[in-house]
């Protein structure tokens, strides 16, 4: 059902395979258009027959048919049978609604949004037709240590939690393996990383793939380096990341954002 990108009306002529239809409403609109039918007065028997023929073709081609297409097939058959029944006059006051009315409303509504979506995609899209400078300018690079996205969405919070949970299970799985790396070794590693990169994000030292032992060893190494005044720990503005930097020779270590 996931046809690719900006398929437009021009392509309709070539859309024979059901997989190129977004759903049953899309298929029905196509049939109505192809047969030049009046959407307000759909010949329900004919359209049902054609709809089911499409399903048959699909079946012969051995393609998966989404449940929605089956539901619509059932709906069409139901409308067809209601059209055949004589109008029952149980409640005499209410004008009996045309059995097709609900379907027509949905088709019109759907067509509206499909038109709107085509209008949207014909605009100058950022990243396709027009381009902006979505990167930190060279002149800003010296001014700030950029952190990740500025705006936080609820979705990101949930995704963060999901990552945490995913990691916990992986970690307990690998808990038995020990890296056997000593604090002294790890201190050496951290220092050489710092010599190479000048500053390091605290988080960057804790990879998701690390075992709990290695996480602990890494953490203790950082504390040790801090105690020895070999590194400086600072925190970016607001809720920023914690940064590690080599301590300049004569400066005192800043305890600023140091972990407790």
């Amino acid at each position: 059902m996931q046809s690719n990108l900006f398929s437009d009306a021009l392509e309709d002529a070539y859309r024979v395979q059901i997989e190129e239809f977004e759903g049953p409403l899309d298929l029905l609109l196509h049939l109505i258009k192809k047969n030049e039918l009046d959407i307000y007065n759909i010949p329900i028997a004919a359209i049902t027959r054609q709809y089911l023929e499409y399903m048959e073709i699909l079946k012969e081609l051995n393609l998966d048919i989404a449940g929605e297409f089956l539901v619509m097939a059932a709906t069409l058959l139901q409308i067809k049978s209601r059209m055949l029944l004589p109008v029952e006059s149980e409640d005499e006051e209410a004008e009996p609604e045309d059995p097709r009315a609900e379907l027509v409303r949905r088709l019109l509504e759907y067509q509206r949004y499909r038109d709107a979506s085509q209008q949207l995609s014909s605009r100058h899209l950022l990243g396709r037709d027009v381009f902006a400078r979505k990167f930190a300018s060279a002149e800003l690079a010296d001014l700030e240590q950029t952190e990740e996205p500025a705006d936080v969405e609820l979705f990101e919070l949930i995704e963060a939690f999901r990552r945490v949970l995913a990691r916990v299970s992986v970690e307990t799985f690998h808990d038995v393996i020990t890296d056997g790396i000593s604090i002294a070794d790890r201190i050496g590693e951290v220092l050489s990383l710092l010599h190479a990169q000048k500053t390091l994000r605290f988080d960057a030292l804790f990879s998701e793939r690390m075992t709990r032992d290695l996480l602990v060893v890494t953490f203790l190494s950082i504390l040790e380096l801090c105690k020895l005044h070999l590194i400086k720990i600072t925190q970016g503005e607001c809720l920023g990341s914690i940064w590690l930097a080599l301590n300049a020779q004569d400066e005192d270590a800043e305890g600023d954002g140091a972990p407790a």
Partner: protein
Amino acid sequence: MPSKSLKTIVESLIFVHDQPLSLDRLALILEEHERADIRLALEELAREYAAGGRGIVLAQVAGGYQLRSRPEHADYIRRLTKSKGVKFSQSALETLSIVAYRQPVTRAEVEYLRGVDSGGVLKSLLEKKLLRILGKKDVPGKPLIYGTSREFLELFGLKDLASLPTLKEIQELAPPDPFADQPELPLEAVES
């Protein structure tokens, strides 16, 4: 009158910022200047860019101002960035337009209108930050409600939601209109 330098300062700021810059934000940054002067500077800048003959245009998007490349040059820029450009499936576009016009909207409402399951496409639009979760609807089952984001406006170059192209009136489709009670644009939420 805004000083000539105020205009160039505003231009610098818009240029450097990686998001559209609003008048509010500019007024906050340029606190020593009058808001009215900043507005004038912006207007003059917009006039200058509109006068054309430039490879850069000043666009009003997502409640702010942003410099963008000239649309006519897209081909050349794609050669440079080697990007194929953003592509949207029909299902993504349909879902986006439904959410854009009917927000706040639930998944069930989107699915009723599209006639197909839309969970996957909603999720991928959330991941792309084009949609956001606005909260939960105060009806039984408390379904999540969705709306469009700032990124959505940026992507489609819209100043705000009110600048969305008007939905085609259904009346246009058929002279005799048996469904005259069809709701107008600020559509009521569909209960499915």
